[in-house]
């Protein structure tokens, strides 16, 4: 057998799934309700971090009930058009003898607003018209991009497994593989993988190797996967450094994307450096670093990156004269969610601008700038008037989408 353990020991039924009992019960109840007709929420959004078994749950319930599983995931192109075809499949009334169906829309937070344009609206339609239960999955349900979906779904969270659930699971697998393992070794794996059972089982497989035993020493070769937590350590180094070299070294510890790291530093600088004059210097170093990012984008001269990195780490560190005043907690950057999303609306805006331009004798650039805010405003205050304008412009669909996306951004 050449299967990785994650495949070999994938749960086949909900009973085999460890942990998350409450969530499983919730989903069972919701599925049962379909017998009495479509419930008020026609879809479930299963959410939780990587490796907690979201897809596995969906597959297991379908198998248990003998239903066909119709799956669309991020590896498929998910434009509105394509999703509409699924809608067809979903809205067909089941005949007396045909099997039931479960529609699985996997990884909806991986929808790409450009290539998958129209997807969110199409999914909403699928949910509205479907005669079959629909399961959506996502890592981050608060991703503004999928907010409209959130409102249309019953939210069910799947949590990471704790030691109490995870270790027996691992032991069960090891027993089938006839491997003896120390309790500490298993505990160490669980701790490193923080309840991500898929990682844990993969690591278990790697570590056991040809021998049929596993000790704590064996786990030493395991590398930590990057988790968001590691960023705190990096920030701590930066804010506590007194020299350029120290601060710069923080970067070696971080595998984080540079622009992302920049956002983290930007968010936390004011609370970490409360003195006004020091803050002024730190912020001006960040502004300077930001300028280098802009120059890199403009000239594609990537070698300029090192100056941006110097300034955003050492520039901030050296701005401080006073020593740190004890621990101040780090905050998650507010902007990380909204940034990528706002990029997605840009294309749409251009298209709408062109339509406005041709109707009102100006360029599309001016059309966007001049009319879009007004249309947006009317949309908020008088939907009927908005509809008239949108239809007159022949741009209702794209306008709808822009507006829904921008509402998300503002929220």
């Amino acid at each position: 057998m050449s299967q990785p353990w994650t495949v070999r020991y994938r749960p086949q039924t909900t009973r085999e799934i460890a942990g998350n009992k409450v969530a499983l019960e919730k989903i069972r109840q919701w599925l049962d309700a379909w017998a009495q007709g479509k419930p008020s929420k026609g879809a479930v959004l299963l959410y939780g971090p990587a490796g907690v078994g979201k897809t596995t749950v969906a597959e297991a319930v379908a198998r248990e009930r003998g239903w066909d599983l119709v799956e669309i995931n991020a590896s498929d192109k998910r434009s509105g058009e394509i999703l509409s075809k699924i809608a067809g499949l979903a809205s067909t009334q089941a005949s007396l003898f045909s099997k039931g169906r479960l529609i699985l829309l996997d990884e909806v937070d991986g929808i790409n607003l450009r290539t998958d344009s129209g997807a969110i609206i199409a999914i909403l339609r699928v949910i509205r018209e479907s005669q079959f239960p629909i399961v959506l999955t996502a890592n981050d349900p608060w991703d503004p991009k999928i907010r409209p979906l959130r409102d249309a779904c019953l939210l069910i969270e799947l949590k990471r497994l704790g030691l109490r659930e995870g270790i027996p699971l691992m032991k069960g697998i090891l027993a089938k593989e006839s491997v003896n393992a120390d309790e500490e070794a298993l505990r160490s794996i669980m701790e490193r993988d923080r309840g991500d059972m898929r990682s844990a089982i993969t690591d278990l497989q790697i570590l056991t190797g040809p021998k049929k035993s596993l000790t704590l020493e064996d786990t030493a070769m395991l590398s930590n996967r990057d988790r968001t937590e590691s960023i705190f350590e990096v920030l701590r180094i930066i804010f506590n450094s007194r020299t350029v070299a120290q601060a710069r070294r923080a970067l070696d510890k971080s595998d984080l994307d540079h622009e992302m790291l920049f956002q983290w530093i930007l968010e936390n600088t004011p609370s970490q450096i409360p003195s006004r004059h020091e803050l002024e210097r730190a912020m001006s170093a960040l502004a300077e670093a930001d300028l280098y990012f802009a120059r890199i984008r403009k000239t594609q001269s990537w070698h300029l990156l090192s100056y941006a990195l110097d300034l955003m780490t050492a520039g901030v560190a050296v701005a401080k004269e006073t020593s740190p005043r004890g621990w101040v907690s780090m905050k998650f950057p507010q902007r990380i969610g909204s940034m990528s999303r706002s990029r997605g609306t840009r294309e749409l805006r251009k298209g709408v601008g062109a339509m406005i331009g041709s109707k009102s004798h100006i360029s599309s650039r001016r059309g966007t700038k001049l009319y879009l805010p007004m249309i947006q405003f009317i949309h908020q205050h008088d939907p009927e008037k908005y509809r008239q304008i949108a239809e007159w412009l022949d741009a209702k669909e794209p306008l709808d989408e822009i507006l829904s996306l921008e509402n998300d951004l503002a929220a």
Partner: protein
Amino acid sequence: MEAALWTEKYRPKSLDDIMDQEEIVSRLKDLVKRGTMPHCLFAGPPGTGKTTAGLNASDERGIDVVRTTVKEFARMASLSSVPFKILVLDEADNMTGDAQSALRRTMENYTNTCRFILCCNYSGRIIEPIQSRCALFRFTPLPEEKVVEYLHRIAKNENVKTTEGGLKTIVEVAEGDLRKAVNILQAASSMSKGISEETVYQVVGRARPTDVHEMLNHALKGDFLKARDELRNLLVKYGLSGSDIVRQIHSEVFRLAIPEKTRISLIEAIGDTDFRLVQGGDEEVQLSALLAHLAAQSSVHRSVREEHVTALDR
């Protein structure tokens, strides 16, 4: 189908309806009457009636007219089988020098079959060989009263309640751009409350001056975090662009009760920030840095405050 956008619905239908550009209108009508028509260059700020005048002048000659933007023009520049006679070209000053040179050659080559009406904001950005081929018409911004009057007429026709303050605010904000003014009017009319100063400020997506004022005050009191919250609010909630905010901070600085020296140093710092935004700097980052600069001033400024304060109302 009736135009849903008021700017289109109320666009003047003949040369006579064009507002407040009497000299231009009479020169144009004269040309139309005489049957001759040179290439024309219409220069002036946006929303002063250039495109409208171009379209109407063409109509009154009873000949085919094609309106186009620069991009489209470039695409169809070969013009081989032109079925039309007058070509209205918007934003001609957005063309590069090279494109203008090409346009100049086109004008020469088709001088027998068509005439150009070029619209631009700045005639100085049109290359001389084109300028000298064209009759120049300079459009001036419309006087405030006329714009108020015009808005009033539309509002009445549309059954919208207005206050004088509301209309005046529109005019102020539109800075002589009629299209912009009508647009604001239409947007504001969608609020059931009628058109007041308040609703207008809401529409223009500009923060109300008080918000910017607030932000600056937080910063000057040394409360950077509050100032930054306010900034984020402006960027996200009002959807303002960074340069909008810079411009507003710039106006606001003149109303702050701060010593003259601080004011001047702030204005220079604002110029700096504007410059960085233009270079592609990130709005939040650059504006935050500006606020941090203000906050750093706070200690200096607080001490001298009571004595030097100059209240500036404009």
